[in-house]
């Protein structure tokens, strides 16, 4: 059994220790957001946070994640109470098919956690890792910008910031 902490909850996982995290998230824990895209760390559809770092969950075996804190898109909010980044993606309608979007959002989340006020160039450079095939890039960039602005506005009013 491998102990995993996902979105603040502890789980005992009986999958083979060599199983990449993605399969455990999707099948064992029934979390839909992280997606299988390539299994090769080339597209970012499976991106989640390990502590504060974005990782390719399709590559990371669960045995390497003991004691780490995993955050998936489900950890940022719910459909009834979306978090700032989720609200921004809805407001910008930043999806077409949407398959790449959870990975995009987790990569953006990592940026906003470390730098709540990135420049447009920093956002573009940071998002380089993730692929989108529908061509939603312009909206994704706008949504990350919007989330950043919302977080800063909230911080100015000393409301809770994006970091849980």
């Amino acid at each position, binding site marked *: 059994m491998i102990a995993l902490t996902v979105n603040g909850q502890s789980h005992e996982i009986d999958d083979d220790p060599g*199983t990449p995290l993605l399969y455990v998230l999707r099948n064992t824990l029934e979390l839909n957001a992280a997606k299988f*895209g390539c299994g090769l760390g080339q597209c970012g559809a499976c991106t989640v946070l390990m502590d504060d770092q974005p990782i390719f969950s399709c590559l990371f075996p669960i045995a390497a994640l003991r004691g780490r804190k995993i955050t998936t898109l489900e950890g*940022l909010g719910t*459909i009834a109470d979306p978090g700032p980044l989720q609200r921004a993606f809805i407001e910008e309608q930043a999806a*077409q098919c*949407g*398959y790449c979007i959870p990975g995009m959002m987790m990569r953006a989340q990592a940026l906003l956690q470390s730098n709540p006020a990135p420049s447009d160039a920093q956002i573009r*450079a940071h998002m380089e890792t993730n692929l989108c*095939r529908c061509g939603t*890039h312009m909206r994704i960039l706008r949504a990350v910008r919007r989330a950043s602005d919302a977080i800063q506005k909230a911080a100015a009013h000393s409301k809770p910031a994006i970091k849980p």
Partner: protein
Amino acid sequence: MSAADSRISRRAMLKGSAALVVSFSLFDLRKLSAQQVPAHAKLPGSLDDEPMLDAWIRIDAQGKITLFTGKAELGQGVKTSLVQVAAEELAVAAHSVELITADTQRTPDEGYTAGSHSMQDSGTALLNAAAQVREILLSTAAAKWSLPKQRLTADNGFVVSDDGKRIGYGDLVTDELLHTQATVESKLTDPRKYRLIGQSLPRFDIPAKVTGGVAYVHDMRMPGMAHARVVRPPSYSARLREVKTDDVEKLPGVVKIVRNGNYLAVVAEREYQAVMAMYALEQAATWEESATLPEPAELFSFLDKQPAQTTTILDRHGPADAPTRQLEASYRRSYQMHGAIGPACAVALFKDGAVTVWTHSQGVYPLRSAVAKMLALPEDHVHCIHREGSGCYGHNAADDAAADACLIARALPGRHVRVQWMREQEHTWEPFGAAMITKVRASLDRKGNIASWEYEVRSNTHSTRPNRGGNLMPSWHLDPPQARPPPRALPLPDGGGDRNAIPWYNFANARVDHHFVTNTPLRVSALRSLGAYANIFSIESFMDELATLANIDPVEFRLRHLDDDRAKEVIRTAAQKFGWSKRPKASGRGCGLAFARYKNQGGYAAIAIEVSVDKQTGQIQILRAVAAFDGGQAINPDGIRNQIEGGIVQSSSWTLHEAVTFDRTRITSRDWSGYPIMRFSSVPHSIEVHIIDRPGMPFLGAGEVAQAPTPAAIANAVAAATGRRLRELPLRLEPGAAGKE
């Protein structure tokens, strides 16, 4: 021949099969003759194929409205737009209705969700069906209250009278009320009174997609579901000589190995167990391969030499001034892939001799026929249900994955089986967009007008969809293999390789030939916009080459050769919003514009692009793109902008980055490192979309209109920046070659 007898189903014509005559009931025949409808009158949109109103709209006793469409959500936002048009005419709130999409037991058969046809076909059907249902409800209430219908209105699910009577839709409907044929004419709402059409309603599907809801077939979990992976042959013609399965069978979780001829798959309890077993099985298999592919460096000369069926699709003669100058050029397009971010997936259950499959196919009904043929089952023993997938952009591996799930589920009756392809399988086995060669020759008169135009396009088929049995790839590997139907050219006006090969310009003398090549060495099928992508690239690049020869501004040159005011307006709008007349002319920067009316019958788009070119590396960067679009009545402007922005980026990616690679035996672009696509660093710095709305005009579709003008706009901008005319897709400038010629 009666009016009804002469009505030939559009789908029957599309299929090219024997004419299927849809007959009206006697009641409707009477109505038709009373209205003196001309013999060719068609019902609006897909109502022509499925005329029963309750096939599209049902209302239960509580007043709950359910809409049915044969079209599928592919990430283009069609669900939201379809609800908008129906809710508009039903006079209800958009969120109060439910929409059921493509399902062979529940919805109309609308063929494929493709070709920017959804709003034209299904949107038009639902708009008219909803208006007719509303009028039936009004008439029913009028009869009930013995009031003239003019005194009643439909309002948010109720019929109300001017003297204060009020009754819910649910209290008016009976079982038979909506079980009636649609009529040709509908009493449509005045566009000036629209509440929903023309509004940028947020898409219904996005909240679940950004919060981890169940959104895709990939997310389905059924009780006791097993996971499968297929071991695909390493090349098109590979034959499985031997496979040692003993060790693989002993791997953890392995439930079953499925082998049938060259078809090999493994089922396991858990998904990653299936992946590991698939890799083990790959190692255990020995294949016999042969070199069946053309020499890659000689692809275009190979294609040029293949025998072809030639059809002259335009032969126009008219008065023109004597030609004074002549120009010719040839353009090429490499094989390119759909490249879904999520590899194809399906879930199937085989039980009691029947199969149910959840699939992201673009056409559940054609898939049902193909699966029935593959499994030798009657069609009513195959149930195909659409669930969303990763964006497909045409005929990709979705149908094949459904076939895989059905084949594997048949070997494991009573258990749901989920199968997903691996990245390398998607990259090497999906049907690609076909390579193309075009040749064009034109002459100018002394005023610089085009006196003659001759154009040829040479390509394979642009559709091998599974509507005819044998086009499901997994069935080719079975013993005995299912025979592949011979490739067929798609008929105009939509066309295939010849889509948009006929210029929209008013050239007095023009000839266009389509050379249809049947030899198909690489698997190909419909990739978003089909032949339009390379045909418009060729036509619109050559228009700029001719404008240069004539020494006329390229925008002015296009306008001179157009009669269609809507075409002129998108060009003028794009040019004006872009600032064409005062466009920057700095070194290493250039601007280009291109225009197309998609399929010569769909939406109009003009796109202006500014690029910069790095003279050292030859790298082309799009700085900004400005598009003007006219798709008739705009239903959801933000949805249209999303499609056009996306179309420009996707087409830019094809144009600047993408070519399938292969050797004599295998496809070698096996993943995103071998087939790079556009990343954030190279997407345009800005994209603007200007929509020219046409209230009350027919829906023309938006999903694929940006694909075709984009490559020529880029190539024209590169030519302006560098003096170099690039005529092969993808566009490549060798390092150091970017200086002015």
